[in-house]
């Protein structure tokens, strides 16, 4: 069973990600806890909703707002990063958390690497399916790279200027 990073540690992951070949109609996801593509969810939400442990994963060009009708009932939503340099998923996460008010598990899947975890966490991801060749310990360390943030995002909606008085400049170090 694959591992997922969640709550500050790596643990066994029950969910599988179902990636059906494109263009084939009427496919049924495998049994057990599974994440299905948004298009499948939208096409068969009634039947899929009846199944326990079914979540949705979004491709970079999927519109996260399409999940609005089901957002309160979903236990897991995943955002896929086919390439870690494709940053659309960061905005998808922001919109799920802030526009739809999604409070369930939001996981990053795909090309998820330790050095991106700090930003992924800030925009609202709370579970990370690391690419299998990467070490969870490294990812957990990288997640805490910054102890402060200037701007608001999901994990800290207030920008630094709304979080109390700034301490003022320190001595110039020559």
């Amino acid at each position, binding site marked *: 069973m694959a591992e997922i990073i969640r709550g500050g540690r790596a643990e066994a992951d029950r969910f599988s990600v179902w990636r059906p070949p494109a263009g084939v109609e009427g496919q049924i996801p495998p049994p057990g806890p599974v994440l299905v593509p948004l298009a499948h969810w939208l096409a068969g939400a009634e039947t899929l909703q009846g199944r326990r442990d079914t979540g949705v994963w979004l491709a970079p060009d999927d519109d996260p707002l399409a999940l609005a009708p089901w957002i309160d009932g979903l236990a897991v939503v995943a955002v896929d990063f086919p390439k*870690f*340099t*494709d*940053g*659309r998923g*960061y*905005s*998808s996460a*922001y919109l799920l958390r802030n*526009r739809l008010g999604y409070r369930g598990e939001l996981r990053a899947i795909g090309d998820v*690497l330790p*050095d991106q975890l*700090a*930003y*992924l966490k*800030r*925009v609202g991801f709370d579970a990370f399916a690391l690419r299998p060749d990467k070490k969870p310990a490294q990812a957990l360390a*990288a997640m805490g*790279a*910054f*102890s*402060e*943030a*200037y*701007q*608001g*995002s999901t994990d800290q*909606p*207030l*920008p*630094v*200027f*709304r979080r109390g008085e*700034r*301490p*003022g*400049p*320190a001595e*110039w*170090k*020559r």
Partner: protein
Amino acid sequence: MYRYDTIDRTLVNERVAQYRDQLARHLAGDLSEDEFRPLRLQNGLYIQKHAPMLRVAIPYGMLSSVQLRRLADIARRYDRGYGHFTTRQNIQYNWPRLEDSAHMLAELAEVEMHAIQTSGNCVRNISSDEYAGIAPDEIVDPRPLCEILRQWSTFHPEFAYLPRKFKIAVNGAHEDRAATAFHDIGLTLRRDDSGALVVDVLVGGGMGRTPMIGTVIRHGLPWAHTLAYVEAILRVYNRHGRRDNIYKARIKILLKALGAQEFTRQVEAEFAHLENGPGTLTAEEYRRVAAFFSAPAYESLADHDAAHERELARSQPFARWVGRSVRPHRVPGYRAVVISLKKTGVPPGDATAEQMERVAQWAEHFGFGEIRVSHEQNLILSDVRVRDLHTLWSEARAAGLATANHGLLTDIIACPGGDFCSLANAKSIPIAEAIQRRFDDLDYLHDIGELNINISGCMNSCGHHHVGHIGILGVDKDGEEWYQVSLGGADGSSLSAGRAALGKVIGPSFRAGHMPEVVARLIETYLQARLAEEPFIETVHRLGIAPFKARVYGAPLGEDGHAEETLAHG
């Protein structure tokens, strides 16, 4: 100057530690080149032709003397004793070792500098008016908002992997010295009828392969909404900008594809969710940041200085330098002084460590320890007393830094080009030098008057050739370096008669050795056709390119063997 507090310092130090670890993992083979590339780029590190290149941010062009000394020190210890100031108010080191890059960043952090987001597909260094705070035509000092935007964009978690790079410029003066029309976002600050600070928001300008003048999508945005509005623009771009083709990935292409109206509708719809949210700026924050840019302790002086006038009358070289390099200042008795980095034989924008130290010393001695970097790749001393100008000139002349060519033909903007850059199709620096040598006669140069020549070694347009009155673009023709010439580009500054325009290509490209002659023919055409006091750009706009084209292509350009040889050893 903005000064770091513990929050700024912590963030920059944590960034250095993060990068140090990433570099170590890369060098140990744990982080592949593909995985390391975006990380090093967002720390300013390119891998170039001969060596890595480190691009250090000089936020909105402001430097203290302490910082400039450190830049000199870094040039000496980690590079070959010089640095290159760029058109986006950064400095580049061309010869560092990859292994040293984390040390260099740590040394920068000690003087409150960094190389964060100076490269990569993220929000880059915020650029602005090099005369901010001292220009007589200023309506609003842009620096507080620049610093607020710098902080907002630094490590923005959502916008670090955009489709492409993203450049923001801010202007607060009547004259646009920040080329706002050619940025992904150009913000123009002004006062509305009630005196309130508002922002005109322009989107989708840029140079590169598809040059475009941006479109104002929001007039008179109340200043407190600046961050939210910029966030809305970036979210629309991050989600919908093209990622399938690097040449179509800038926001200008998205704006064009959607049409300005639909693009604006999407931005406004996103902004509606953010308006009056936590990202709304507060008056307290504005005041806090603005306090860093309050005026230094100016003396109360007469604007006229008798001794200075005597020196002007006595010395033609001094008068010439004053005419070109000394710019107006809003405080009587003070001037801004341009230190030209365009001496013939020196790559445009290059300064040695010794020169940087001299400039730092002058900034302390003749001013308040402050230096600006201009997008024309020169340095500016911001607060020099009129009575000190002659002493400064004497010292600058001794240091080889009193070239009286600011705004003239030889004040060439050029990218590092094929000598350094792995993207370049052709060299830029030797072309600049060959043109400078051809126009070495100061009398002739002053007679020609104000003129921009901008040279880029490739379509990425780092040398801003699209907005050069004469623009020169290096192109590759079957493995040989050729140069395409355009006329009539204008960046929107007064030197460009206040308008923004893209240059028009005059025809087939030229060999390197022909370029001085091509420029000479353009100039001869202008000198014959100009009306009294009419600058080059106005003549081009009045006549169009036809007469210039006829002259340049009218007679054979002749053998270029000699010129080629000069270039090869330039």
